[in-house]
């Protein structure tokens, strides 16, 4: 395109990079996001990768993607349909064309559309020539050839050159979004600081891509997303899994209790284990256990011994941990269990997100076995909810299950960096050495919390265990009335946490036609839909729950304040079922999606409009 090409200002843009696994799409997407963040845009990212590490080359199964929405206003999700799609091979186009907005831009490596690759991806005719892409703006570039040419002087193999095709595509995109190259160079320099050869190759190809877009006439207009008006402060881009890890690290520091993580690798939770283990320099003990059960049991041992004990997992792992959660409940020890939910049942769709472990978290154990259940909303909020989960668990001497999901865990957004000293205090209820009045199950009369007596402390030797104990003294007992009392005490202790958690808020007016109720990782997409409808004058409100067991004290007032209530979840209606049992006075409508996909703003607006208009429902 020539230099006079118009630049369109846009409030937000969704862009997705897709290619074969190994084409470097995650890196290209991350670099684009980080660059956009530094240039002042708000953003939300989501990687979309197959479960297989390297599925056969050029097949539909091997397609790996990275989606990001950038904006000049607060961005709540990675977006529905793409404004720009970058595709590195026919299989990527085939699997992703349905996610492109009509009129959207598709950047294609034309070299990859050969007969063999077209055949492998099931194309009968070549979409580049058969007219099927006529509704899109197609920028077809011979990415493979030009990448190789740009590296001709560097004496490297075609194979090695092809590995940097992602940088060529990124170069085109940076031009398309009116971003200079300097910021991206800086990220490359820090990433490849100790690999100068690779750094040079990447910079050369990135520049070549940028110049190519500047020169050819295929690009008829560029976008510019103005800077977002974000609150003052220091920011970074953060994924939900890293935010969870850091929230726990901050809570350990603030509580004065060393962090212990017992965990077994499982998609999509493993990154928390990897992130925490990177930070052993902070005195953290990390135990990669032989299985999920050993993960939680080691954490229970560490908790008894005085650590802020954590185990991290995903759905199937939570099933394996059930019995041990019961042990933590009856021994009344603090324990944070993080479940990064994925699509089930069984192995299900491990790399796809879902909210279907809610009932498991609430009830999936033998006996009367109440635990606190919380859920994070967005990637950055995982920091605060992990912190709060640790605080509640320690201060109330009871296990907390924190639910996040694959969409939050792998997705990322901007995070305004807090000061640890500004976070709420965490005060562990430690028993004092040689306290003659110490009894294992003596409680604070108000909170019902027992004291934490750490091994090694003089004068506090005691035993805990899975057998029912008498209150106060903690002696093994099968006394009928004692058991009933202990069951009720454990229940009451969890319920009393409602005194400490924030009241539920409504986004929108205090009353109206339709209250949308949701929880956990769907906040962003639902909030976007609600805001759009509110701008159009619809009387719609949004109550997004993070505290599930116990529910905020004002839940019933909130739910009674609108004419209709619809519970939206990425499952078959688990929160709705729970609300029906806890607050049966309300009539709950449901909107459920169980496709391993997030909600899309468009679909929600359509549904909500129908619900508002349809007087019968």
């Amino acid at each position, binding site marked *: 395109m020539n230099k006079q090409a118009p630049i369109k200002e846009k409030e937000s843009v969704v862009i997705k990079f897709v290619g074969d696994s190994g084409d470097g799409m995650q890196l290209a997407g991350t670099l684009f996001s980080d660059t956009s963040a530094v240039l002042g845009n708000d953003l939300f990212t989501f990687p979309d990768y197959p479960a297989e590490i390297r599925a056969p080359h050029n097949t539909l199964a091997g397609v790996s993607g990275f989606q990001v929405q950038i904006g000049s206003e607060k961005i709540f999700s990675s977006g529905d349909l793409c404004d720009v799609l970058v595709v590195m091979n026919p299989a990527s186009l085939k699997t992703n064309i349905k996610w492109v907005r009509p009129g959207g831009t598709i950047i294609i490596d034309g070299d990859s559309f050969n007969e063999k690759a077209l055949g492998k991806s099931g194309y009968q005719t070549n979409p580049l020539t058969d007219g099927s892409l006529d509704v899109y703006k197609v920028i077809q570039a011979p990415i493979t050839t030009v990448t190789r040419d740009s590296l001709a002087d560097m004496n490297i193999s075609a194979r090695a050159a092809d590995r940097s095709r992602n940088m060529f595509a990124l170069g085109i995109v940076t031009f398309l979004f009116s971003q200079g190259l300097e910021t991206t160079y800086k990220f490359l320099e820090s990433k490849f600081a100790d690999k100068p050869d690779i750094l040079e190759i990447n910079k050369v190809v990135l520049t070549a891509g940028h110049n190519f877009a500047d020169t050819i006439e295929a690009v008829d207009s560029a976008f510019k997303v103005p800077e977002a008006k974000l609150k003052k402060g220091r920011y*970074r881009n953060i994924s939900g899994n890293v935010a969870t890890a850091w929230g726990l690290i901050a809570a350990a*520091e603030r509580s004065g209790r060393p962090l212990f993580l017992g965990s077994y690798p499982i998609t999509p939770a493993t990154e928390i284990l990897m992130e925490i283990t990177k930070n052993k320099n902070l005195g953290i003990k990390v135990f990669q256990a032989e299985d999920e059960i050993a993960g939680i049991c080691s954490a229970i041992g560490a908790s008894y011994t005085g650590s802020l004990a954590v185990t991290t997992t995903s759905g199937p792992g939570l099933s394996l941990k059930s019995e041990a959660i019961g042990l933590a409940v009856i021994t009344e020890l603090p324990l944070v269990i993080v479940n990064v939910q994925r699509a089930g049942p069984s192995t299900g769709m491990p790399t796809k997100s879902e909210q279907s472990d809610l009932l498991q978290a609430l009830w999936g154990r033998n006996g009367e076995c109440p635990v606190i259940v919380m859920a994070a909303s967005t990637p950055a909020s995982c920091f605060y909810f992990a912190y709060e989960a640790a605080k509640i668990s320690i201060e109330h001497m009871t296990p907390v299950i924190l639910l996040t999901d694959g969409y939050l865990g792998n997705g990322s957004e901007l995070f305004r960096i807090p000061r640890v000293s500004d976070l709420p205090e965490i005060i562990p209820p430690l028993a004092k050495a040689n306290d003659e009045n110490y009894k294992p199950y003596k409680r604070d009369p108000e909170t019902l919390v027992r004291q934490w007596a750490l*091994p090694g402390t003089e004068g506090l030797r005691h035993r805990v265990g899975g057998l029912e104990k008498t209150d106060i003294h903690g002696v093994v007992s099968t006394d009928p009335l004692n058991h009933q009392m202990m069951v009720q005490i454990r229940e009451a202790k969890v319920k009393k946490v409602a005194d400490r958690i924030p009241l539920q808020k409504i986004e929108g007016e205090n009353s109206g036609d339709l209250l949308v109720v949701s929880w956990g990782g769907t906040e962003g997409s639902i909030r976007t839909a609600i805001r759009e409808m509110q701008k159009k004058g619809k009387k719609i409100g949004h109550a997004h729950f993070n505290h599930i067991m116990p529910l905020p004290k004002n839940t019933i007032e909130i739910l009674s304040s609108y004419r209709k209530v619809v519970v939206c979840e990425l499952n078959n209606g688990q929160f709705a079922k729970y609300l029906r049992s806890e607050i049966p006075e309300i009539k709950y409508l449901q909107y459920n999606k169980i496709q391993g996909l997030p909600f899309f703003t468009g679909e929600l607006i359509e549904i909500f409009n129908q619900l508002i208009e349809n007087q019968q429902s």
Partner: protein
Amino acid sequence: MITNRITSSEKQLTKEDFISDQMVKWCPGCGAHAILKAVENVFPEIGYKKENFMFVSGIGCSSRFPYYVDTYGIHGIHGRAAAIATGVKLSNPGLSVWIATGDGDSMAIGGNHFIHIIRRNLDVNIILFNNQIYGLTKGQYSPTTPIGSITKTSPHGTVEHPFVTAGLVMGAQGTFFARVIDTNIKMMTEVMFEAAKHDGTSVIEILQNCIIFADKTHADITDKEIRDDHQLHLKHGEPMLYGKNKEKGIQLKGTKLQGVVVGLNGVEMEDILIHDQYEKNPGFHRMLGKMGPPDLPVALGVIRSAEFSTYDDMVEVQIESAREQSNIKCADDLLNSGETFEIK
């Protein structure tokens, strides 16, 4: 008294320091009573502060143990004592951690944790009550029940090959293995002291009698008439002799161990193997661990006590070196590390 990084008691403790106020509810005549006695004998001798002892157990008759000793303790869930103890020891390496477990708890439902704690060589002591039966559930066969045994769940006799505990422990790269009989409190006490001294996972297999569901299960080792010929009491640095008058010994013939009579068929004292419990190569220890009637006696005492680095030590060393090398000293440093930017 043992000295290491676990804090010692300033005064000499006694048995009474460890006696719990709970009623001991094992069956009268159960071998577990003697094991409890041995623990009460040895803990004051080990010399650590009484608050630094910790018992962890799973489920089963053996696993009631923590309630019967006055130490810190967790009575856990079935099979998971090793996993719980791992968290205890890593979280506070200044504790002397003891696991009470049974043949079912450690080698059936808890088999995975058992082999992995041994493989990692975590510095804990495992007292394994092997009575070759499930006692608490009233008499079903276990992974060590001899093949052919009639039990509640094998009315026609078991058709399973049992584990030899020593073989499993050393197969999992065990660094300490001892075997004792529940009636020999003196040997139990000595072996427990040795286990406490050993840095790494110590497994003490106690051949325990369950008078209700597997009475005399170890009779071919313990019966008065045959025990001298069926028991080899190992002592480090001494020849492996057994028999009523120590007239028999163990000799290596080819690749096999053989029981021979000293002075007969030209066998001399020099031909008898000398026990080296500290040998790192597990070859001989494995062979000793697997010996048993009718051809050979059962080896008792400390069979293996080899020095290897422990998991908990390596964890501490790694944390210290990470601390020295990193510029990130607190959570604020971490939050502000890497790519960040200012909005003004």
